[in-house]
């Protein structure tokens, strides 16, 4: 028996066992799920990256002319467009780089050109694949075409595709696009600081005071997770818009822009920060506080020397999660951003507004950077986290303190009012007939079928997507986590898998969605058939939310001793028997958590699916976006609230089911 110390936990079992059938099967499983992640994550990202480097350029050497005299006679001299441009420098080099939709007029090559002149022109390409337009007619090939002057001015050259960095040069030299980086960073940093501070104070009040209604506060703090991120934007318009209920509160400033984005971001990221910080505060050791008291440290000093250092990893984690959520979110700035450009909205504008897929890919690459950095730093910090809670720790129990409790209660009430208020405003707006002119109540806004966005069918689709994602996602994630955790040796495979499983956290949904278009809509891709179906939505949602689900599963599995496997193999039981009879029942609470996490997120996600849904698979969250976009703000609020109620109901069912299952499968936990 070797003695294990916390510093040198063995990575592998001391005795190397011979590979049995079980091991091979488990490795097979790992490879299958890794392959799944490669196809649904690595390949699409690669397709997107290569799109970002796919450039379009006008190639003048492809075009040749003949010019006639005034009487329309040609003397047979052939002029190359490239040579002409070299002489005249009519079209500067930097105008040669363009997008897939570029068109270049050729008249600047002829300084004395006039569309009234009787001069005739002949034009041809030097290779078969040259494309130019006469008006809007597409012409290609090497045959001479004769046109009069008036038609000649309607000729434009189309670009050829090549590979290079010119998309990036264009991007960084377009001030409006470049500015988005600044804006995105600014908003994300401000939102992060404010949200983390607020969430910390909230979590602190809940764990360190003896105020009443803690359960209610906890429930309310979690509510924003149940709605799409753009819903607070809609509520803020009703509250602080020009016809808003509290418009005076803005003191002349416009809610459309940074104020709105930051306020909305605080709302939708609050629960994420709250969960992480609560966990961090929960593991504090009462002995440290006792020591502080006996050393006569002031409460203020205790706070800075005991509380904050103990929670610092949680705070850093929370900060990165919030930062990532804000910088990659697209729904909120689209609804309330006004003219304030953000990276995620730029991708949408480039792709949907201008059909410039290449530039969309470039912005995606830019957006990947901060998200990736944040992710990498966070991973490093996580590694440093050491166990604060040792076996000898004493759980901190707060003592009643009337003044402190009252302050905490007031603060939590204010936050709760903010959260409930936002949701309440949306529900109220949804029931008003025609704000602000006709305040009578009506259900008219629930008549989704006559609006853009897919109607009630979209709502049904969303539930379907949620259920399918929860079902298949949980199976894939849990089996993957099990194999990674319990397979013996096979480090390379496990390492690769672990990396792939962590990657989705760093990929903004927009980027993933765009990558899916490039990859799955390629006619040469055998998986092309799933493009435009429910299947692709399920796959993209599972991939998008893979990391957190995976971590939940791994955490639960880590609690199970490896001895189970040893016992099973010494009893000559195959691993799948152990898996179904022991592992799954023991981990049931975690499995249910993964399922509900996937369901709720599938209901609210916008960013990953906005490029991928089709008419038959319109979704409720997208309908909120589209209805707001079309100006049907009240119906958008109504649909947003439907998502909220559905998710709340799902949570309640989840609670009830968990309780029932816990009773049956977790009885062993009680002595």
């Amino acid at each position, binding site marked *: 028996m070797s003695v294990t110390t916390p510093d040198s936990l063995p990575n592998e079992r001391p005795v190397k066992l011979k590979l049995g059938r079980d091991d091979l099967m488990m490795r097979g499983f790992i490879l299958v799920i890794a392959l799944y992640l490669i196809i649904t994550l690595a390949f699409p990202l690669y397709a997107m990256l290569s799109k970002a480097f796919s450039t379009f350029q006008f190639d003048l050497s492809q075009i040749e002319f003949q010019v006639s005299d005034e009487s329309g006679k040609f003397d047979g001299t052939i002029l190359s467009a490239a040579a002409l441009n070299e002489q005249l420098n009519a079209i500067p080099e930097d105008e040669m780089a*363009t*997008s897939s*939709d*570029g*068109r270049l*007029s050729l008249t600047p090559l002829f300084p004395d050109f006039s569309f009234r002149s009787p001069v005739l022109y002949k034009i041809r390409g030097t290779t078969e694949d040259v494309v130019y337009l006469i*008006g*809007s*007619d*597409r012409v290609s090939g090497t045959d001479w075409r004769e046109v009069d002057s008036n038609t000649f001015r*309607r000729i434009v050259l*189309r670009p050829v595709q090549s590979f290079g960095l010119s998309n990036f040069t264009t991007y960084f030299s*377009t*001030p*409006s696009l470049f*500015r988005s980086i600044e*804006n995105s960073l600014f908003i994300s940093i401000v939102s992060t600081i404010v949200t983390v501070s607020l969430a910390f104070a909230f979590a602190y009040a809940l764990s360190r005071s003896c105020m009443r209604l803690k359960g209610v506060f906890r429930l309310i703090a979690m509510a924003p997770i149940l709605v799409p991120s753009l819903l607070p934007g809609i509520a803020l*318009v009703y509250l602080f818009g*020009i*016809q808003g209920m509290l418009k005076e509160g803005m003191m002349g400033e*416009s809610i*459309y*822009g*940074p104020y709105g984005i930051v306020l909305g971001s605080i709302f939708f990221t609050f629960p994420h920060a709250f969960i992480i910080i609560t966990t961090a505060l929960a593991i504090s050791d009462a002995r440290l506080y006792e020591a502080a008291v006996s050393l006569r440290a002031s409460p203020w000093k205790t706070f800075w020397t005991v509380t904050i250092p103990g929670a610092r990893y949680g705070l850093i984690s929370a900060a990165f999660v919030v930062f990532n959520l804000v910088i990659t979110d697209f729904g909120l700035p*689209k609804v309330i951003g*006004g*003219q*304030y*450009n953000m990276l995620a909205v730029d991708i*949408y*504008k480039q*792709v*949907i*507004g*201008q*059909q410039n*897929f290449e530039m969309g890919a470039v912005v995606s690459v830019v957006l990947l950077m901060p998200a990736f950095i944040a992710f990498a730093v966070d991973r490093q910090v996580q590694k440093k986290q050491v166990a604060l809670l040792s076996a000898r720790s004493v759980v901190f129990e707060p003592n009643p303190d009337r003044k402190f409790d009252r302050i905490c209660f007031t603060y939590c009430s204010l936050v709760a009012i903010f959260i409930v208020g936002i949701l309440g405003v949306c529900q109220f707006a949804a029931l008003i007939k*025609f*704000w*602000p*002119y*006709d305040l009578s109540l009506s259900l008219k806004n629930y008549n989704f*079928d006559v609006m*853009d*966005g*897919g*109607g009630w069918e979209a709502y049904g689709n969303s539930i379907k997507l949620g259920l399918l994602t929860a079902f298949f996602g949980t199976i894939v994630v849990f089996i993957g986590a099990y194999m990674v955790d319990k397979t013996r040796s096979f480090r390379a495979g496990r390492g690769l898998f672990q990396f792939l499983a962590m990657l989705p956290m760093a990929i903004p949904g927009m980027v993933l969605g765009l990558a899916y*278009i490039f990859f799955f*809509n390629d*006619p040469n891709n055998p998986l*092309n058939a799933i493009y*435009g179906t429910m299947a692709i939505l399920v796959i993209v949602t599972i991939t998008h939310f893979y990391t957190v689900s995976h971590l939940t599963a791994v955490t639960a599995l880590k609690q199970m001793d490896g001895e189970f496997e040893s016992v099973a193999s010494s009893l000559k039981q195959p691993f799948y028997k152990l898996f179904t009879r022991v592992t799954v029942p023991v981990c049931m609470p975690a499995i249910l958590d993964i399922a509900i996490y996937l369901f709720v997120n599938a209901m609210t996600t916008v960013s990953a699916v906005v490029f991928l849904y*089709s*008419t038959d698979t319109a979704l409720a969250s997208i309908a909120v976006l*589209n209805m707001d*976009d*079309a*100006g*049907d*703000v009240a119906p958008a609020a109504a649909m947003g609230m439907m998502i909220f109620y559905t998710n709340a109901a799902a949570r309640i069912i989840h609670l009830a089911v968990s309780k029932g299952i816990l009773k049956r499968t977790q009885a062993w936990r009680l002595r």
Partner: protein
Amino acid sequence: MLQLKKLALTAIAGLFVANSVAAAELTVYTAVEAEDLKRYAEEFNKAHPDIKINWVRDSTGIITAKLLAEKNNPQADVIWGLAATSLLLMKSEGMLEPYAPKGVENLDKKFIDKSTPPTWTGMDAWVASVCFNTVEAEKLGLKAPKTWKDLTKPEYKGHVIMPNPNSSGTGFLDVSSWLQMFGEEGGWQYMDALHENIARYTHSGSKPCKLAAAGEIPIGVSFAFRGAKSKADGAPLEIIVPEEGVGWDMEATAIVAGTDNLDAAKTLVDWSITKEANEMYNTGYAVVAYPGVAKPVKFFPDNLLEKMIDNDFEFAANNRKAILEEWQKRYDSKSEAKS
């Protein structure tokens, strides 16, 4: 056993019968309003019950992006009801099948593609207008603007909203019409002045009118169809057709090159330009391609037809990229238009 066989046979026979009713299925891409689609398919099936339409509907920008993304592997058979400027993009990519539908000579020339044979035919026009909220305007003491130039007056500062041409087809048709009416230089000068008054630019073309209807911003540059609908919903709107003239685009129809169902596609396109079809378009749109069909539509301004400019679609399509770049350079880089 024998009975089972019989049952199977009847079932198979049943399948054949069912199949022969819908001899062809067409995948039709469209940007027509959701509420009109069912009606369009029903009317078409009255004449041709053997062709089933599978709609793929989305807003103009998204459908255009989708079609271009599927360029090398088209999923659509027919495009029925998409902006002509978008169809011109597809045409320049060689994505459309040239076809002169039966009876195309009956249509107003403005509504037919200039190539022979044409690659697309128009259905109805979709005309720019200004939505003006009379209640809010009175509160603010604003007079109704009569011309585009009026909108640049200082009194309207922060009270005008328009769609961003980079994301909205309506926004682009406004910009391209100003450039055509006021000339290149005059057009940009006008937009410089207008920009001072714009509260913000929206992503969609109908939102300015909806916002005007809701009183959020009293003046919304949008299109007439949307204004008429909001007015019918009870919004205190006046729909203003600026005197200089208004830009417009049309909803148009085309066959996607490479379709497996060319005959059925032709049947659909033939029907789409008939008088009956145009009468059907007229329920929502005041201006349709078939001369003499249009009856006035409730709440539509009367002088709309005469104010429509002679829109040069080719100019708009071939200069689209340059115009949008210039626009973005001038107005999009300002972080926030201060109101």
